[in-house]
Every structure is written in structure tokens, then in C-alpha cells.
């Protein structure tokens, strides 16, 4: 089912995220996904996340589909030129995939094979436009397709971007290009998110707030130093720092649930990135009053 149908019904949409493994052992990943089945509306499958060579997103999306779990196919511009991107979008559709999240992708030098060739033939905006074109029955050069896909297209946004103005302009371009919803970068700062929502009020597509489960104080500090636009307030870092290792998941769940409660009224959905802590996602949703 397309996420747009849920948004149209006025549902507060819940998505989560899994990352394919480096190798062919998919059982742990599928187990993670099963934990979320029935609790979330769809699960994003990342595309060579952090530019690390892994099992592909498309294959895992199909495996989820076969298990009755709605996937969101993440597709980045890093590894494929425009021919391959369009072709993979067609492939995704014939495999039953209806939700696609279009991203630029991390640069190769951040991953485990920095010598590889960065492709970036398209950017996220032109990828969205290409996907929309396919849906309208035409490829990027205007050739007619024999059968066209029907996707719900998503894009990403960073509420913590500094400065915010160019980020807002880029979101406008993404909507013009075909984006039907946004999932955001991790949010921990309610005030900042409120500012972001105010600055993007004119962008009339559903926005899903991104929530990353905090695993430790160290992780929070790492994100503050290294992840663009992510700011974990000192108050939350202290909570994680004072918790024992056994207590951490409980604290993490409490933090995420209370954030969701505060942010829920400002947006149309939540995208939870558990980074392996999938088994705690149902707790988060329950504590946040979403299930």
C-alpha cells in the first residue's frame, strides 16, 4: 500500500528502518523486520547505508513484501547513473514495491571503499523528477514506456540544517519534482523542529519527524560532532550517561516516546530509525500512545 493513501485518510503514519547486512545472512534482518510487523505502516530499507558495500535494498524490499511487510525502497544517486536508476525503479515496481524514498546519498569517501567512483549522475531532485516521469509513462529523454509504475515518492529533509533557508528552498524543489512526503533527519530538539515546521508551513506535503533511538551518551556526542543538523541537548545526554548499560534501552525508549508525544501534533507521521534496536520500537510506539 502506498503511504500517500494513509496520509490521505488522515492517519498518523509510522515507519521504521532496517539496514541490509554485509553478506547474504539475512535471517537476523528479517527477524528485526518481523518485530515491527503490524506495529508500523512501512519499513524503509536503506541503500548501501553510510556508503558501505552491502546486500541491496531492492532485494530486501521484495523479501519484506513477500512476508506481508510494506517496504519503502531507499534509492540513492551515489552508485548508479540515470539509466540504472530508472531501470531499478521499473524493477522495483514489477517486484511490487510502491513506496520509494529518493536521496542523493552519502559520498563514497565516508564508506568502506573510498577509492570507488562516485557516480552522482543525478541529484535527489532530478531523481524524483525522473521517477515522476516514469509514473507519467515517459523516461528522462521523453521516450514512451510500455507500462508505467505507480509510486508514492518520498524525500528527506534536515530540520537542523544551518542555515535553514537553502534547505527550505531545496524542499520546495523536491515537491515540485514529485516528492509526496518527507522523512526528516533525527530530531531531539523540539523548539528547533517547531521553527522548521513554521518555516515549511507553505510546503503542503506530509512531514514525518525522524527519531533515532539514543543508545548511549557517546553516540549522542558523536552525532553532535559529526552528523549534519543533529543536535542532542545536554539534558538527554546526561540521562543516557547516568543510566547503567542495562537501563539504557529503557531510558532510550522513554526519551523517544516523550519526543514523539511532543512532536506528534506538528507533523503527519514519525520515522523511527532504531539502528539495530528494532525490538524496542514497539515499546516506543506504545509509550508514545501510537499503538
Amino acid at each position, binding site marked *: 500500500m502506498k503511504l500517500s493513501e494513509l496520509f490521505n485518510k488522515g492517519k498518523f503514519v509510522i515507519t521504521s528502518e532496517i539496514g541490509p547486512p554485509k553478506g547474504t545472512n539475512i535471517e537476523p534482518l528479517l527477524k528485526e523486520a518481523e518485530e515491527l510487523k503490524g506495529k508500523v505502516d512501512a519499513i524503509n530499507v536503506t541503500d548501501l547505508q553510510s556508503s558501505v558495500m552491502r546486500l541491496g535494498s531492492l532485494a530486501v524490499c521484495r523479501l519484506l513484501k513477500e512476508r506481508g511487510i510494506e517496504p519503502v525502497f531507499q534509492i540513492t*544517486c*551515489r552508485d548508479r547513473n*540515470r539509466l540504472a536508476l530508472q531501470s531499478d525503479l521499473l524493477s522495483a515496481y514489477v517486484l511490487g514495491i510502491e513506496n520509494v524514498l529518493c*536521496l*542523493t546519498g*552519502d*559520498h563514497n*569517501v*565516508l564508506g568502506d571503499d573510498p577509492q570507488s567512483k*562516485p557516480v*552522482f*549522475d*543525478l*541529484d*535527489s*531532485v*532530478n531523481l524524483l*523528477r525522473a521517477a515522476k516521469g516514469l509514473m507519467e509513462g515517459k523516461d*528522462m529523454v521523453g521516450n514512451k514506456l510500455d507500462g508505467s509504475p505507480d509510486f508514492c515518492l518520498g524525500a*528527506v529533509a*534536515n530540520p537542523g*540544517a*544551518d*542555515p535553514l*533557508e*537553502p*534547505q527550505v*528552498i*531545496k524542499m*520546495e*524543489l523536491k515537491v*515540485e*519534482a514529485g516528492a509526496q512526503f518527507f522523512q526528516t*533527519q533525527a530530531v531531539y530538539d523540539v523548539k528547533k523542529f517547531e521553527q522548521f515546521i513554521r518555516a515549511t508551513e507553505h510546503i503542503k506535503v506530509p512531514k514525518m519527524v525522524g527519531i533515532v533511538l539514543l543508545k548511549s551518551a557517546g553516540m549522542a556526542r558523536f552525532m553532535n560532532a559529526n552528523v*549534519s*543538523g543533529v543536535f542532542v541537548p545536554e539534558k538527554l545526554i546526561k540521562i543516557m550517561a547516568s543510566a547503567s548499560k542495562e537501563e539504557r534501552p529503557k531510558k532510550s525508549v522513554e526519551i523517544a516516546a516523550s519526543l514523539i508525544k511532543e512532536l506528534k501534533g506538528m507533523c503527519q507521521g514519525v520515522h523511527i530509525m532504531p539502528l539495530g534496536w528494532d525490538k524496542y520500537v514497539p515499546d516506543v510506539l506504545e509509550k508514545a500512545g501510537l499503538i
Partner: protein
Amino acid sequence: MLVSERKPWEEILSYVAQDKNIFLVACGGCSEACQTGGEKGVRELKEKLEQAGKKVTGYFVVDFACNKVLVGLKLKRYLSNIYSADSIVVSACGIGVQAISNMVNLPVHPADNTIYMGGFSGVWPGEERCLQCGDCKLDITGGICPYANCPKNLINGACGGSDKGKCEVDPDKDCAWAKIYERLKEIGKIENLRKINPPRNWNLMQPPASRKKSIFWALEFEEEEKEVVK
């Protein structure tokens, strides 16, 4: 020696659609050799712009637009003509356009597309580079090349890795699109960011062999050879 081609006239006119007064700069180096720049090139631009109802506040030819000292001297001499203009149209390679833009606080529009540099990338003592993409975007990007400066060659704004003006690839490196944003703000052209740019045409990087042979230096070389045969 580089090869450049005049941009389609409609494209140049679209750049200056909002501008009434225009200053012109042409490179008398490589650009003259491939018949885009030089006296001839700048006069052609002047005539066409005037026909289109624009006022040309002045012009100069500089050999070479990539020579900082020469450009600096020329700019100084024409300062009042330059700042009575709304923008500058430059006939030069990508380096020349970036060089002028770097030194003047006005929107700078490229009149040409650089399609081939044959190993010569000018003598500009700065970080600017021209990738000879064949479809110069320096107009919309405020004279800062996104292809040469963004490791992802992005053409529609920064990626999610841009952080407080720095690039995800190297925290010491400026994000090209953050710089473009600042520059566009400075010259009052933020609206340039509000239009989707189509993806790059890679085919333009393979100019036909006949085009490369059409520049002056190739002909001169042929003549020299004939002399040797005598």
C-alpha cells in the same frame, strides 16, 4: 589552449533579462583564438545586447582573463563603468568567468561554454577550476562552479551532508553550495536557487574533432610545418 563556444543567444538574453545596464569583458587569449572572445567577440556581444535594448556601460579585452594582475589593473581602470552596470557579461573560459566574479561584487554571466581545455587551465592563482562541462552554469551559481567544487557535482543545492558551511567529504573544505548560497545572497540573486536545473549533459564533454581543429593555433602550426618542408 582551450576551446569555447558562444552560448545560444536566447540563453545569454535570459541571463540579463532583469538588467538594463551591462558591462562586457572579453578574454584576448584562448577565447580570441577560438573566435568567441577578443575585440571581435566583445563587439558582437555589444551590438547584440544594444539591439536587445540594453545599455553597454563599457567593455574591455584582457589577455588573459585568468591573469589576476592584468584583470585587476583593467578592472580598476573601468571601475565607474563597471559599477554603473547591473551585471557583467564575460566572454572567457570558466576560469575567466570565475576570476572576474571573484573580483567584482556584481552578478557575472558567462557568454560562452568551455568545451575543451587541452591541458591548459589558465594562470589564475586561485582555487577555481573549470571542468569543461560544455554547459557553463556560472550564471545561476553566482560565479562559483558546483561541478568543480562539489564532490557530488550537485546542481540543485547542497546535500544533507553539508554542515555549517562545510563539506561531508572533508570538514576543512567549504561546501560549494553553502558558498553559492552566500554569494547569491550578496548579489541579490537567491531566486536562482528556486528553479530546478536539469542533470548535466555528459555528451558535451566529447566535442567533435573538427571543432578542436578549428582554432587559430592549429592553423598556425600547419603553416609552420609547411615552412619546414620548404
